């Protein structure tokens, strides 16, 4: 396998979220990873943004549809007369 193409801090920063989101192609991901392995400031930025995204997920996923709504949907949607085929 060839060594990944060298990228600079700016390119790494531009692709950081895509890297964290798992949205890069394997080649592009390897380039970012190689840069992060070598570059302490970018690695530090990665840790910070990763912590931020984890925090966002943790703070926003607790909400569930209320029981009264679930009940209404069971009663009104699933037994909807207008959609009787």
């Amino acid at each position, binding site marked *: 396998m060839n060594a990944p193409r060298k990228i600079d801090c700016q390119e790494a*920063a531009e692709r950081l*979220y*895509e890297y964290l*989101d798992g*949205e890069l192609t394997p080649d592009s991901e390897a380039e970012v990873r190689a840069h992060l392995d070598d570059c302490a400031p970018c690695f*530090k*930025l990665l*840790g*910070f*943004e990763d*912590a*931020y*995204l984890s*925090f*966002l*997920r943790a*703070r*926003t*996923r*607790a*909400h*569930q*549809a*209320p029981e*009264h*709504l*679930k009940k*209404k*949907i069971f009663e*009104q*949607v*699933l037994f*909807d007369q*207008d*959609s*009787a*085929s």
Partner: protein
Amino acid sequence: MAAPADNRREAFEREALPLLDAVYRVALRLAGDEAQADDLVQETMLKAYRSWHQYKSGTNVRAWLLTILRHTFINEYRKKKRAGPTVDVGEIEGYHVFHEVQEADPEGNFFDQIVDDEVLRAIDSLPEEFRETLVLSDVEQLTYAEIAEVTGVPVGTVKSRLFRARQALQQKLYDYALEMGYIKRVER
């Protein structure tokens, strides 16, 4: 043999209903209040049920439901304007918060002190297209391609909206943390 209506009911219960919480969370962030979110979800699920024959089994039911939700919201609910201030996402300097805190708190520990309601309030202050992109990604974990499908824009637009939304939200939460004394501003 079961009637077609029963097959549909069964398929809908199995495939669509487990996503009710996800649909509700997105509805709540789009509509901005619980009563409207309730109506929006109910209407979305009813439309989905009535057009279930258009859904191709085995494809992405979550993206399909969220697309119906979004259309319903835009066509019928958005007219009722939301109140409240909107965060400016126009001038986003990349990773500004990190540059401010990298000496004092490089691991972002100050985030841990910010409670759920405050985060949701901050999300609600984002302009709509940025808010929906962020919610679909960071709350519901959709891929960029799925977000592009639901919001009807190219993947490149999803990427840039997500970057700006995350950075604007981070700045807002940082400002809040400063105000609350969770973190001290670094003098330079």
